[in-house]
């Protein structure tokens, strides 16, 4: 009998703790998904959001994990406008970001550095017009070998999802929730720059 009371109490406590965390973070947590307000995003990323390195790509990126080659294929089958040569995506090409208004211009946008519990995550996207043609991870979590193992598995999957979804509205990879969260937030902040 006492055991049942204790278990019921525990369940209630769990529900309270979890709903508090959900609720307290709710206002900011919604932001990166909604994709409209970068401000809420950077606050939510633990103050790291402002560390974004502008939009000049390819500079000083520590050992980027380049995922563009597998992505090119899936990007191509998207719609009927593979305007620019897809060979250019893979390199760390300085962007034509200065902005010729042309819809097919290739732009490279760097996302905010998002500090996760296991280290920073930073994502760079390549856009042709409004189409995501490449994603590259500039910084990934670095808390030991397990963390690297998790990233090695999760990041290609996240890249594929991004190219398929053409937005930051992608699912987290199971077992890599921190990596996924950091990835998604950084990706969203990069995409926010495209619309800004």
């Amino acid at each position: 009998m006492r055991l049942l009371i204790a278990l019921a109490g525990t369940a209630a406590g769990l529900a309270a703790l979890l709903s508090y965390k959900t609720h307290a973070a709710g206002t900011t947590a919604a932001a990166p998904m909604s994709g409209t307000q970068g401000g809420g995003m950077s606050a939510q990323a633990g103050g790291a959001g402002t560390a974004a390195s502008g939009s000049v790509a390819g500079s000083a990126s520590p050992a980027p994990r380049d995922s563009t080659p597998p992505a090119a294929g899936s990007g191509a089958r998207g719609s009927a406008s593979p305007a620019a040569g897809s060979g250019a995506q893979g390199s760390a090409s300085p962007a034509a970001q200065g902005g010729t208004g042309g819809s097919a211009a290739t732009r490279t946008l760097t996302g905010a550095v998002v500090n996760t519990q296991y280290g920073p995550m930073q994502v760079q996207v390549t856009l042709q017009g409004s189409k995501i043609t490449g994603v590259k991870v500039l910084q990934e979590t670095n808390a030991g070998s397990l963390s690297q193992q998790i990233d090695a598995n999760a990041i290609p999957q996240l890249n594929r999802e991004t190219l398929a979804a053409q937005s930051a509205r992608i699912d987290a990879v199971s077992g890599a929730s921190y990596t996924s969260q950091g990835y998604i937030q950084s990706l969203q902040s990069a995409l926010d720059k495209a619309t800004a």
Partner: protein
Amino acid sequence: MRTGRPWARAELVLGVIAAGAVAVLGLWWADTPRVSGLGDALTGAGRITGLLAGYGVVVLVALMARLPPLERGVGSDRLARWHAAGGRYVICLVVAHALLITWGYAVTAHTGLVPEAGTLLRSYPDVLMATVAGLLLVGIGIISARAARRRMRYETWYYLHFYTYLAIALAFSHQFADGAQFVASLPARFFWSAMYVVVAALVVWYRVVTPLLQFTRHRFHVIGVRAESADVISVYIGGRWLDELRAQPGQFFRWRFLARGLWGQSHPYSLSALPSPDMLRITVSLRGDYSSALATLRPGTKVIAEGPFGALVPERSRRRVLLLAGGVGITPLRAIFAALPPGRVTLIYRASDPRDIVLRDELDAIAADRGGRVHYVTGTREELGGDPLSPQYLQAMVPDLRRHEVYLCGPPGMTATAIESLQAAGVPRGRIHHESFEF
């Protein structure tokens, strides 16, 4: 003689345990930025239950580590009850942890429970080992459940319990390899391991090293066995420098008789006489396989004694004293009876069968010598025309009952009834000292 109430200490210990649990929750709280969606919530609940279970097993082992402050402040019987209740709770936490984590990961990954369980077992480090540990714990929990325990020999139950140590060891590594709260935080890993290491050291020190040191110093051995009734015996145990142990009347030792068939276990028995520098005496009821074998003990048999333990020790108090014994619960009270100041003590000795009354000559002699009074209350309730432990009956035997300090020892049912009656008769709870002798 001891001052200070075991009450407050028990609450202090519970407070410390609760504070530790809050600190463990703090680990999760500090490391969790937010919870979004069902998968996250389930995983979060799984992590919390896992952390609490990892903390809980340490608390459970610490309760049984024979720590002198706990044994004296809280009392071994209450520690055993906490351990049993806490054990059931922690096993539920372990089960909840496994289910919630699997479910949470499955929801996040959009897979089913079964494939996700497979993934967890195959590709997460040490999860397989931890699963074995969890199953062990659940098995031990089922075996220890009251109903099952009655059907099995105490010895079997006792030995099975040692597998919990194996389970705890098996489950340890997955906490650091997979636990989100530990992977990234060196301080968390440090304090968590420190907690495990300290408790393990305490167990080894108090359950293994101390008894052996006492054995070599005091050289406990059986002097002789005397029959007190058809099924009660007294065992006299000799040794040297026993006064150094500072055993007090009302306390007990855990005795391990180094004889064939007996050396594998230690059992708690109260001192039934005042301890002397070269001899101790216990009085044992011969029910059960183990205790009936004690009747065959030969003089000279070596004994490892752990102790003294027990919080049923006379308070330094000017109040009159009531000693209330049920059955073989007389043993610690017999020792206390001989130790209390003369003239202010009443002893009520309850046994349903008059033949179960033991040590009668000694009790009468103490009463005559020290001006105490003894009531032997025997017979069933029907024969007595009422419950002798009812408030009215007790008040009739003990005038001014409410002003007494009460020491109570007997089987659990009798103890519970007596406490209710004493409180109904106006004795404050803080003045009722009791120990239940069934462990």
